[in-house]
């Protein structure tokens, strides 16, 4: 597995798309840190980029990569190798290289502009959730492309998944809150937030910025939950579940599939 991981990682890091992805984060964070008076403000803007772009690129590039390396996969399958090691190796190399680009792309400007390391805690959360989102959405990408031989269908479905997670889920969330507004909603809101990895990442970073204190009574409820050790553990377990669930289904189907 490690060999496959190593070779495809090296291959990926040379790909034009990944360099472009890295440069995108580098320039956008560079500009945001440059024009914002403090790191916290820039982080709020970067958060918009993170929760929309990281899932989008991860899922689209994941699908693209899988379809493009079908022949390579078939070649590998002909070798006396365990299927789990092949697919896990490919998955890890892709998601790790994307995560690597994301971390370097935002980390370098942060260190460059923020020599005092203020807001280092919330930036840590920002990086961690960004990496988690990368792993989650590449897992989805692999699952989708394995299930669909048809490329058009695969791309369509991956965009749908992204649209659902980033936009539609929040809309449903808001509708639910409006519909049940006569009831105490703090627990429901917490549950819904934990169940959506994109929302969860956004809330985790926001609550670590100063503005958590500014969000009134409800904000205080979320802050006390996500500020506690059990809350943080629950949040990261949920993110981990979102990685493991699609990955497990993907490996399960891949091990039985007739290529």
């Amino acid at each position: 597995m490690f060999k496959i991981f190593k070779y495809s990682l090296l291959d990926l890091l040379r790909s034009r798309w990944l360099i472009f992805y890295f440069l995108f984060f580098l320039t956008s964070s560079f500009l945001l840190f440059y024009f914002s008076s403090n790191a916290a403000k820039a982080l709020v803007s970067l958060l918009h980029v993170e929760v929309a772009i990281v899932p989008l690129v991860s899922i689209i590039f994941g699908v693209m990569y899988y379809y493009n390396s079908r022949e390579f996969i078939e070649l590998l399958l002909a070798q006396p190798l365990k299927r789990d090691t092949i697919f896990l190796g490919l998955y890890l190399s892709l998601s790790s290289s994307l995560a690597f680009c994301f971390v370097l792309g935002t980390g370098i400007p942060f260190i460059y502009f923020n020599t005092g390391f203020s807001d280092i805690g919330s930036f840590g959360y920002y990086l961690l959730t960004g990496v988690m989102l990368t792993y989650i959405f590449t897992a989805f990408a692999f699952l989708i492309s394995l299930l669909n031989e048809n490329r058009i269908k695969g791309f369509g479905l991956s965009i749908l998944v992204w649209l659902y997670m980033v936009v539609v889920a929040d809309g449903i969330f808001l509708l639910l809150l409006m519909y049940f507004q006569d009831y105490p909603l703090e627990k429901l809101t917490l549950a819904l937030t934990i169940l959506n990895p994109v929302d969860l990442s956004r809330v985790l970073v926001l609550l670590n910025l100063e503005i958590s204190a500014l969000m009134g009574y409800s904000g205080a409820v979320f802050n006390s939950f996500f500020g506690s050790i059990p809350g943080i553990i629950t949040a990261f377990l949920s993110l981990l579940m979102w990685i493991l669930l699609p990955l497990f289904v993907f490996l399960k189907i891949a091990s039985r599939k007739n290529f």
Partner: protein
Amino acid sequence: MYSIKRVLFFLTLISALLPAPVLFAATLECGPGKPLKTLSSAVSVAQANDKILLFAGTYHESLVHIRKPLTIEGIGMPVIDGGENKDVITIEGDHISIKGIEIRNSGKSTSRDYAGIKMVNSSHCVIEHCRFINNFFSMHLDHSKQCIIKNNYLNGNAKTETASGNGIHIWKCDSFSILFNKIERHRDGIYFEFVRNSRIISNVSNNNLRYGLHFMFSDYDSYHYNIFSNNGAGVAVMYTQHIDMKGNTFTKNWGPTSYGLLLKDINFSRISGNSFIGNTVGIQMENANKLRIQGNNFSQNGWAMRIMGNCEYDTVVANNFIGNSFDLSTNSSGTGNLNVLEANFWDKYKGYDLNRDKTGDIPYRPVSLFSMFVESVPSAVVLLHSFMIDVMDEVEKNLPSLIPVTLVDSKPKMKKN
């Protein structure tokens, strides 16, 4: 002979005309190694208008009652320790001044208002350069007028709201000046109830459990250039009119029920040149009418202003709104809005200025759709900065259908005021 008689006559005339105490005022020394060992003995010995010099040391005294015009001046900051027994010093008279002493440990009670200095039915008194440490109420002043409280430091060590008193508590007084004091860790920093014609200038009130400054039923007062920070609920001005609030700073009043400035049932007042920085709510307005809010800075607040539907004829002019999560929110649909917003600078304004008159050509609607949602469902605040919400807000801003169309700044400024 004749001339001596004449001189004597004039002397008696002069002494009869001049107030006698001025001529015969004495200075008493009190302290360790002096004939008078305690403040209470010095007060009982002293004649009206005498001056008592209190030398450095710790005096374990309480219930010192001053009824005659006296000046008590500390030399080297003497400490009067009340030993948690009722009031430490009580002032009941005119022309009494206390200067440069430290008062500690008044009694604490849930039914009586024990204080470091209690003032009753007095006038023309001065309390200056004193320190108040660990008292229940630091100063409890009632039914008095024309007094000055200046340059004091007050620290109440308050732990819970029920077991703590206010820093400067003023009840039914007139013409007070509260100047240059620093107040911390009390229940309310400064408390005004039925106080008229008074001014509060250049004080610092922070880390109080409830309000930094609390006005109730007090008209014709002003507070200028004070700093209120980290208070439990900020500053409250309630059931009052004709208050002038100028140049104050309200910062970091954070929490679920915290405001920089809470205005409730207040009329005919002016709020100008203040800074509201990093509060959960900058100004919360409930039934606040005919106010002029001009030239204030709102930055990094959760909500810069919340104007409830029962506020009418308020004018919000030439303020700066920078980096707030929500600039303005309201609980009314806004069809009958009677407030005026004009010439403010909004950092979220995206309009243009073709004729270069420094005023945006398209009106700005500071109430966002999301803030309307949050107003009706507070939990929805968890969706702040969500991709969907941002898109929705942008669409609504360009084609308003749900946000109050009348609450609008028709002449937004392009640059900071």
